[in-house]
């Protein structure tokens, strides 16, 4: 049997190295710390990053907060945004890119503005998370407004299967609630209000004070 080399997926493990296969110009020097004179930074972005830097003994500790600020402003950690943050922090853009590519919540590609993370880890998948993700995929149907992805354990196994809708934890989500949920997100309404984690009482009967207890 002959093997066709083009069919062998190389570096398929690289979940943590996006951009691994991108073309790189090896002749080019790495970017240095951006020059403030030629890098215009929006005033509010600069103020936010500087305020974060002031909170730590070492300014580089503000890397994640700075990248969050960039992401809030531009929707993702865009090369321009990263360069602006690097300019304020006096580090190289490469330093911040290295940080951005390490963390799951920092987007290094443009994404939809509605973050919809579905936990697909053990506890949730025992309760049907894979089916939930498939149903959501179908309902969202490639809408570029959505950033729908399966996510590792979100720390809410008590409401499995669950999703994080723009940071709001919702669950357990039944398959027939999927159209309603997606419609609510599109309309900018609170997602499935009755199923939000914030309103859930503790499961431990000893903790109940006002006749609360397990749902």
């Amino acid at each position, binding site marked *: 049997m002959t093997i066709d080399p083009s069919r062998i997926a190389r570096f398929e493990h690289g979940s943590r190295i996006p951009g691994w296969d991108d073309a790189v110009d090896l002749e080019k020097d790495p970017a240095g710390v951006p020059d403030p004179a030629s890098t215009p930074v929006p005033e509010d972005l600069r103020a936010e990053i500087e305020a974060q830097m002031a909170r730590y003994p070492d300014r580089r500790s503000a890397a994640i907060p700075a990248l969050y600020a960039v992401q809030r402003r531009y929707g993702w950690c865009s090369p321009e945004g990263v360069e602006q943050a690097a300019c304020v922090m006096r580090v190289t853009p490469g330093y911040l890119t290295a940080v951005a590519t390490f963390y799951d919540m920092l987007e290094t590609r443009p994404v939809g503005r509605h973050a919809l993370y579905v936990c697909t880890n053990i506890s949730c998948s025992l309760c049907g998370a894979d089916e939930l993700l498939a149903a959501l995929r179908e309902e969202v149907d490639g809408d570029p407004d959505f950033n729908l992805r399966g996510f590792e354990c979100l720390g809410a196994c008590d409401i499995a299967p669950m999703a994080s809708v723009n*940071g709001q934890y919702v669950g357990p989500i039944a398959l027939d609630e999927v159209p309603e949920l997606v419609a609510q997100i599109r309309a900018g309404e609170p997602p499935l209000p009755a199923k939000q984690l914030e309103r859930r009482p503790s499961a431990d009967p000893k903790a109940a004070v006002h006749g609360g207890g397990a749902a």
Partner: protein
Amino acid sequence: MTDILLLEGIDEPGLATIEGYERRGGYQALRKALRMPQADLVDQLKVSGLRGRGGAGFSMGMKASFLPQGDMQKYVVVNADESEPGTFKDRELMQKNPHQLIEGIVIAAYAVGATKSFIYIRGEYEHQADVLDAAIAEAYARGYLGESVLGSGVTCELHLHRGAGAYICGEETGLLDSLEGKRGNPRLKPPFPANQGLFQGPTLINNVETLSTVPHIVTMGAEEYARIGVQNSSGTKLVSVSGNVRRPGNYEIELGMRSRDIIYGLAGGPPEGRDVKLWFPGGSSSPVLTKDDLDLSYDFDTLAKAGTMLGSGAIIVVDDSNSVVDVCHKLAKFYAHESCGKCTPCREGTSWTVKMVGRIKDGTATPMDLDIMASVQDHIIGNCLCVLGDAMAMPVASMIAKFRGEFEAQIEAARERREQAFLTGVGA
């Protein structure tokens, strides 16, 4: 014997505000602690027998006593990067009773002489981070935090740092690197954080639940606290029960409770007509147990003797409608995704395990693959800077050891399916 401390009145409206917490007697433990000499406070923590609730189960008092004495910048770092699959106890504590945690931090910081503290919370917990931010602002306004806590001259600054989604940042040195603004790669140990931690300063790192327990120890006295639970496992523990159970959630138990009473009694057991097939006693990183082990006492030593660990106290129950191969595949995929890639045995071992379990599922595996898989696990354990690789290797190895027959049956069944499909193709 009391068995509810951390969750007491947790659903009381307004508990998350400083008025609500003070109404329940909050911050009295801090007043009491500030009147005690620092060395006595560390001794109290030792006497209490409190063991870390984050996973390793190391004595908190011992850890605190490892920090050097003297006039230098020391730090307290709170590990709130709760990412161990199955664990969601810290989430509830931070969301519903943030001041209990803050009080614990201030007491611990005073005990070890740290003037700066950080809470490292995982980025996904946005609501909990907002609650904590508000609580920290309240505590500053009331003088529980700041340059002179309650006028005692003790300084305690506290700052919340949000992570951005990486399991490895729950590992203490990975967390420190992340907090310093780098990629969250674990460091070589020693030096341990108690000597050289955050910004090279001596650092006490503890889990949210551990620090939330500290005010209770100060209030009731270490001897009294040590009487709760069993030998070498004192106190109460939050267990997060999830998976195939009827009433998933956080339950506070006295350590030494029978596991069956937790899974069946508190959490309601598997759904009607189903039986427990396997369960993880302490998060997905702990070697699995079967239904024959349900009568084990739930404490650190008993579980260690049974070849597994109490870990973070997250019980994941898998019932007999699930295939152990699927569970193994999910588990291995998680660790392969979260491996930071710094150490070769973990980076390669996790991804090869995923491929081999995948082969078992799609029918291209041979029974020899099981032996290779088991040997890969052997090569990971103990060969990396941190225990992320071990955290996959131990449960995978235990699943192969305990359910080998099922793995082999699945290999054979999948192979037959493939053969049939091939023969049908040839015939057509």
